[in-house]
C-alpha cells in the first residue's frame, strides 16, 4: 500500500512538472562580471523592459554604479554564441536610471533612459551607439520604449508648471542611427495635480496602449489608454484593475503598482501588475488580456498558483510574440530566498502552475526578472543575483527553449 501511494505521488509530481515546464532553460551565462564590492545592478525601468532580441542578437540594458555613479549600460550576445560582449556605457551625464529597450530591424536596438532629470533615446547598432536624442522639455522620468515594424514610440512622465503629464512620442530613425522626434502628445492634455508613476507603452498593428499608476482617486489605480495611431488623441483613460476594496470609511482601494505591458499575436496586449487585493498576504500578480491594442481589456486574472496564494510577489515582467505566445515572470521568497517564477497559459487557457527555472532559483537571491519572447517561442530571461539582499550583484541570462508536446 505504501509503495502504491509513493507511486501515486511520484506520478503526480511528474505530471505537475510536465504541466509547468513550458521551457527548458540552457545553462546561464553571465551578462556582467563577478559580483564586485559596492557595485549594484538594477533592473527597475517601467514595465521591466530590459532585454530584447533580434534574429542575430540578444541585448540587455541595466543601471549600475560601477563607475561610482549610477549609469546605463548595454551588452550584446550574438546568437547562437553563449557569451555577452563587454558592457557599453549608454548614458553620459551625472546620473542615469531606469532604462528600457526594444528590438529594431537590421540587428539594431532602441534604448531609452532617464539622465539628470531628462529622458533620452538612443540606437544601438552593430556600428555602436548612435547619438542620443532628448525627449523631454521639463523634469522627466520613467521612460519606456516600444516598436512595431520599426515604428518606434516612447512614453514618459513630465512635470510642467506643477502638473504631471504622460507624454508619448513617435520617433523616426535617421540614416545616421539617430532618433528624430516626429510628434509628441500628452495622453491627457490638461495634466494632473497628482503624480502618475511608471507609465509603460506597447504597440502592435492595431495601435498604441499606455498603462500607468494614477493617484487622482485618492489611492492608486492602474489606468490604461489606447490610440489607433499618433495622428489621433488617446482615448479617455479606463481602469485596468477592476477590484477596489471597500472595507470601511477609510478604504478607497487596495494597492496596485508596477504595471507591465507586452504585445502578442496580431493585435493583443498582455498587462500584468502587483495587486494587494488579497489583503494581508501582500501583493499578488494579476493580469488582463486586451484586444485591439488595449482598447478593450478582459477581466482581471490571478496569475500565480495556489502555492503562492499566501505569499507576496514582486517585480512582474511580461513578454509576447507575434505568434501569439505570452508569459509573465516575477520574483518571490516563498522558499525563503528570492527566486524567479514564470507562468503562461496552459492548454486549458488558464494560468499554468508557477514554474521556477532551476537556473534562476536556489540559494541566494534571484530577483527582478526581465523577459523577451522571440518568434520561435524561445524565452530569453535576464535577472539579478545576489548572495544576500544587500550584497553586491551581477546579471545572468538564460535561454528557455519551448518544450515539444
Amino acid at each position, binding site marked *: 500500500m505504501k509503495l502504491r501511494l509513493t507511486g501515486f505521488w511520484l506520478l503526480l509530481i511528474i505530471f505537475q512538472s510536465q504541466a509547468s515546464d513550458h521551457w527548458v532553460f540552457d545553462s546561464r551565462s553571465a551578462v556582467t562580471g563577478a559580483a564586485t564590492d*559596492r557595485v*549594484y545592478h*538594477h533592473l*527597475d525601468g517601467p514595465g521591466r523592459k530590459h532585454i530584447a532580441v533580434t534574429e542575430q542578437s540578444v541585448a540587455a540594458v541595466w543601471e549600475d*554604479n560601477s563607475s561610482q555613479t*549610477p549609469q546605463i549600460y548595454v551588452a550584446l550576445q550574438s546568437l547562437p554564441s553563449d557569451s555577452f560582449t563587454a558592457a557599453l556605457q549608454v548614458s553620459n551625464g551625472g*546620473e542615469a*536610471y531606469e532604462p528600457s529597450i526594444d528590438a529594431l530591424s537590421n540587428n539594431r536596438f532602441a534604448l531609452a533612459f*532617464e539622465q539628470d*532629470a531628462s529622458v533620452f533615446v538612443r540606437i544601438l547598432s552593430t556600428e555602436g551607439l548612435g547619438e542620443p536624442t532628448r525627449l523631454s522639455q521639463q*523634469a*522627466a*522620468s*520613467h521612460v519606456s520604449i516600444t516598436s512595431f515594424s520599426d515604428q518606434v514610440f516612447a512614453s514618459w*512622465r513630465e*512635470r510642467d508648471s506643477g502638473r*504631471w503629464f504622460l507624454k508619448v512620442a513617435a520617433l523616426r530613425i535617421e540614416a545616421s542611427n539617430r532618433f528624430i522626434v516626429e510628434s509628441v502628445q500628452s495622453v491627457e492634455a490638461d495634466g494632473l495635480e497628482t*503624480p502618475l*508613476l*511608471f507609465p509603460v507603452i506597447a504597440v502592435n498593428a492595431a495601435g498604441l496602449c499606455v498603462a500607468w*499608476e494614477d*493617484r487622482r*482617486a*485618492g*489611492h*492608486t489605480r492602474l489606468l490604461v489608454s489606447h490610440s489607433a495611431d499618433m495622428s489621433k488623441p488617446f482615448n479617455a483613460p479606463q481602469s485596468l484593475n477592476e477590484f477596489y*476594496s471597500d*472595507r*470601511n470609511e*477609510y*478604504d*478607497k*482601494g487596495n*494597492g496596485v*503598482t*508596477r504595471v507591465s505591458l507586452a504585445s502578442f499575436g496580431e493585435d493583443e496586449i498582455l498587462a500584468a501588475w502587483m495587486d494587494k487585493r488579497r489583503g*494581508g*498576504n*501582500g501583493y499578488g500578480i494579476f493580469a488582463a488580456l486586451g484586444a485591439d491594442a488595449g482598447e478593450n481589456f478582459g477581466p482581471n486574472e490571478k496569475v500565480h498558483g495556489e502555492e503562492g496564494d*499566501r*505569499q*507576496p510577489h*514582486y*517585480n512582474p515582467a511580461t513578454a509576447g510574440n507575434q505568434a501569439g505566445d505570452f508569459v509573465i515572470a516575477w520574483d518571490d*521568497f516563498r522558499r525563503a530566498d528570492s527566486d524567479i517564477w514564470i507562468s503562461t497559459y496552459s492548454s486549458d487557457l488558464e494560468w499554468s502552475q508557477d514554474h521556477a527555472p532551476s537556473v534562476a532559483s536556489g540559494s541566494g537571491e534571484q530577483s527582478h526578472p526581465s523577459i523577451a519572447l522571440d518568434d520561435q517561442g524561445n524565452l530569453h530571461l535576464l535577472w539579478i543575483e545576489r548572495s544576500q*539582499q*544587500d550584497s553586491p550583484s551581477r546579471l545572468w541570462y538564460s535561454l528557455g527553449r519551448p518544450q515539444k508536446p
Partner: protein
Amino acid sequence: MLHSSLFRLPLACIVLLSLSVGTLLAAPPEGYRFLSLTEATQLASSENKPMLLYFGRYGCSTCRKMHAEVFNDASLNAKLNGAFVLAYVDTESGNRISLANGERITEMQFSSRSRIIGTPTFIFFSPEQKPLFKKAGFQTVAQMNQYGDYILEKHYQSMPLNEFIARQ
C-alpha cells in the same frame, strides 16, 4: 511571515541621500514632523534621538484610520514629535534613496527588500540607531505610547518589549 531583513541592517547602512525628480509622494499624518528617510537618518544620528520609521502607502486604509483615530491624540503627538525623529517611506514610491554602501534604490524596492508586506508598518530604533522592533497593522494610542515609553525610559536595555508590555 514578517521577515526582518531590515533588522540585519544597522541604521547607518540605511539612507544617506534621497533623490527625486518629482515631489513628495508620501502621505504621513498631519501635525507630525515626518521627514524623508534621508533627513531623519542624519538627524537621528547627529542628535542621538530614537527614530520611528513609518512604512505607508498612498491610499492605505489602515494608515488613514490610524491618522484619524490614533495620530490625532495630543499626548502621542507630543511624545513622538518631541522625543523621536520621524521618517516616512512610501512603499510604492519611485523616489530614490541611497544606502551608505553606495547603492541607490527606490523607496518601493527598499520596502520590498525590507520584507514590508503590509502597511502601516512601524520600525522603532533606539537612540543608538539600533532597530529594536517592528509592528505591522493598526496600533492603538495606548500601544503607540507603550512603544514610545519602552524606548524613552530605556527598558529596551533590560527586557524585551513583550515583557515590558506584560508588566504594564
